[in-house]
């Protein structure tokens, strides 16, 4: 064990891991975290706290993570390179670890142009891969990026994202290998609706032996409405929503679409679970946290092993 992370413990014990996700509010309201956290508690091994997702200003991810931790959950703090240079990133890494948070997910970040402050200056001093390496060197070498030494290292279980559906497809596994070489301990993938394409990607991952070096959590998410499905299909960069998914949702009466979306999510969990090398799932029910208990139960993933209390 490299860290005190509950997620690491679950994965090392070769349980099929479950992570969830919680989006901090665009306000200073701490209650929102508590009310969302209650749906995750007992159902996930750890939960991601997004960091200014889609470049919209929200409560800082470390602060929301701490609120969630107080509710008895294990946070994974997401950290993007969009808003912080290497100085700010390393300061946050130290702070997060000092607060007793055990996991961090390193991302490049959605471009500021997408959000509610499109005229902001993007930072991108380092990219996600360089960030993974920086955190790894801080933890394992006790060194800052500058090469300076530190006395107490941040013991973080280090995650990174992978998108099996972004182009160019052939290169996606190379990029994953690069993240693993840089020091990623676990990977959470983009939301999967095209299971065949994901399976193909996993085949390449196994051929390179990467599933033995890094824990891969397959990204899944329930679809709430036809509108949401169409939006993801056409407007979200790097998403692959096959026509068969739209047809399945269209095939039920309008008031049952969200039910069908939940069933579809459970089906996808069952399918990805069969794929060799998949170590768990990452369930992203953003702004729909109340369905998490039902999905995890229906997928037969309860009770969670040794969930941190």
């Amino acid at each position, binding site marked *: 064990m490299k860290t005190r992370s509950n997620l690491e413990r679950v994965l090392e014990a070769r349980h099929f891991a479950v992570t969830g996700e919680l989006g901090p509010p665009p306000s200073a309201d701490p209650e929102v975290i508590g009310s969302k956290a209650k749906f995750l508690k007992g159902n996930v091994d750890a939960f991601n706290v997004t960091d200014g997702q889609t470049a919209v200003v929200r409560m800082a991810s470390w602060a929301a993570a701490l609120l969630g931790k107080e509710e008895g959950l294990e946070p994974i703090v997401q950290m993007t390179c969009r808003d912080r240079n*290497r100085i700010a990133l390393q300061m946050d890494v130290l702070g997060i670890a000092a607060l007793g948070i055990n996991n961090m997910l390193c991302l490049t970040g959605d*471009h500021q142009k997408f959000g509610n402050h499109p005229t902001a200056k993007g930072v*991108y001093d380092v990219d*996600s891969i360089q960030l993974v390496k920086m955190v790894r060197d801080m933890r394992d070498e006790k060194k800052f990026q500058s090469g300076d030494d530190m006395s107490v290292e941040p013991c973080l279980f280090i995650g990174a994202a992978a998108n099996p559906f972004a*182009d*160019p497809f052939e290169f996606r596994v190379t990029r994953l290998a690069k993240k693993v070489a840089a020091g990623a301990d676990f990977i959470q993938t983009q939301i999967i609706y095209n299971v065949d394409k994901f399976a193909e990607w996993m085949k390449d991952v196994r051929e390179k032996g990467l599933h033995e070096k890094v824990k891969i959590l397959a990204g899944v998410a329930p679809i709430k409405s036809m509108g949401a499905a169409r939006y993801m299909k056409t407007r979200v960069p*790097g998403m692959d929503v096959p026509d068969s998914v739209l047809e399945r949702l269209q095939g039920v009466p309008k008031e049952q679409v969200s039910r069908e979306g939940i069933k579809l999510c459970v089906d996808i969990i069952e399918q990805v679970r069969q794929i060799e090398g998949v170590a768990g799932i990452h369930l992203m029910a953003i702004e729909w946290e109340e369905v998490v208990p039902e999905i995890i139960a229906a997928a037969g993933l309860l009770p969670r092993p040794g969930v941190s209390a």
Partner: protein
Amino acid sequence: MLAVQVKPEEEVVPLISSKKLFVFECLGCREVHYPVEEAAQFLGNLKEEVTGRATLDYLCNREFARAYIDEYADEIEEAQAVLVFSCGVGAQVISSLLEDKLVYTGCDTLYLHGFQGLTAKEFDCDQCGECYLNYTGGICPVALCSKHILNGPCGGSQDGKCEVDPDMTCAWQDIIDRLARRGQLHLLERLGAPKNWSVEPAS
């Protein structure tokens, strides 16, 4: 007008070693800054066979560069790699005109205060002082990628377009395509270290 300095030999020589070379040298910005002596010394120390050498002004002008490429077609054909001494724009122009050739730059382009003069506008160089073109197929990730990342593409690249704007090509897709044509895809495994954003400007 752009200012350059010659890269350290140990950075460039391993890339070109035991390859027959054709050399381009651009003197278009000589009045501003061109390290004539350092470039001559670099070339003098090379053990590689040189099939030909073109010295010209304004390599950044694509039509101009094309005319020279035509004139030296045989020597370029015979060479296994092309080494360019110019700013990042000139190196990108040559790389784009010789897509199937291994094209390397021997220079870093330095930031220059004040009036920049005229350079080609199809290609851009941020004068970052640490030129990456040798690892990116001659396409600049610093100036052309919306997040100027050195380990691209990011997860938003789709259908060859950048996530930021569907009318913008993803620089990293272009880089991968170019490297594939040149049989250099292995360069994508190279971990680009955090960049030095504060290379001293030219004085």
